[in-house]
């Protein structure tokens, strides 16, 4: 079993040139940075807020905040990591506004049985995603990830969907590296277990067929 392959990054030097140009007032250079990262910021924002309008607002607010504070960006981290940090904070603020009754924090300790083995260990069908239409699959994936606490799904999205390294994720979320690793493991295992309900191998035919043959005698 091989390791997951990381995504390939854009060249950092090119990015720094754009940031320098934007800092000196070149709005078209900043527009290029928007083009490069708007899709990613939108995905992150929608994963955190779970709301399309909020995600649109986060895209605008995060890029404008980045533009207004470009002088503060010193280049110790990648521009993208700095931008993600801003976007995550904007998204969490939106989420808190929508759910004032619940405290939303990346630091929240969610009680899980992290040391116990997963309960659901049924194997999956060979190509589980092909059992469903694209629309059904998106609905399943969306509903499943929404069930995770915000702190878990944010780490999962940055690491596994957007391809940030553990170090970049820790920096973007202001978490320690062990905290990122711990949340990532728990997020991955929880998602895996929840998806097993949809994707597990059904030997001897699917549920509908079994029900039909089992209840067929009257």
């Amino acid at each position, binding site marked *: 079993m091989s390791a997951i392959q990381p995504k390939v990054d854009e060249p950092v030097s090119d990015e720094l040139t754009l940031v320098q140009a934007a800092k000196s007032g070149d709005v078209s250079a900043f*527009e290029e940075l928007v083009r490069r990262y708007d899709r990613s910021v939108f995905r992150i924002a929608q994963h955190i807020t779970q709301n399309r309008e909020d995600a649109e607002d986060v895209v*605008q607010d995060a*890029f404008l905040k980045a533009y207004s504070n470009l002088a503060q960006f010193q280049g110790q981290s990648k521009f993208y990591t700095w931008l993600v940090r801003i976007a995550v904070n904007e998204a969490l603020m939106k989420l808190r506004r929508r759910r004032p009754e619940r405290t939303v924090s990346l630091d929240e300790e969610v009680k899980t049985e992290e040391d116990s083995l997963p309960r659901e260990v*049924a194997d999956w069908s060979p190509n589980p995603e092909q059992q469903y239409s694209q629309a059904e699959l998106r609905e399943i994936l969306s509903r499943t990830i929404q069930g995770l606490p915000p702190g878990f799904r944010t780490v999962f999205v940055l690491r*596994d*969907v957007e*391809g940030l390294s553990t170090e970049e994720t820790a920096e973007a979320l202001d978490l320690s590296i062990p905290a990122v*690793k711990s949340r990532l493991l728990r997020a991955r295992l929880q*998602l895996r277990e929840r998806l097993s309900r949809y994707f597990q191998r059904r030997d001897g035919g699917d549920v509908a067929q079994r029900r039909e043959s089992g209840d067929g005698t009257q």
Partner: protein
Amino acid sequence: MKCSEFLQELTNYLDGVIDDRTKAELEDHLSWCHNCFVVCDTTKKTIEIYRDSQLYELPDDLRTRLRTAIVAKCHARKKSGPQEV
């Protein structure tokens, strides 16, 4: 290696950041423990399905609208000087 130890190393293994000795112990465990093999395999599939899912893609028309608004506000800010959002 016990199942609980395997679980602790799972994320490092899937990310390819694991020393050779631990990797060999883990793969030995996977060779005889069917449950852990399934957990490892389906966790990897979980990550790949989400990565390839195109969940929450930004539609082109919305993308253009957002970018146009951002650029217009950047130009406005440039004229009025730097300020906090």
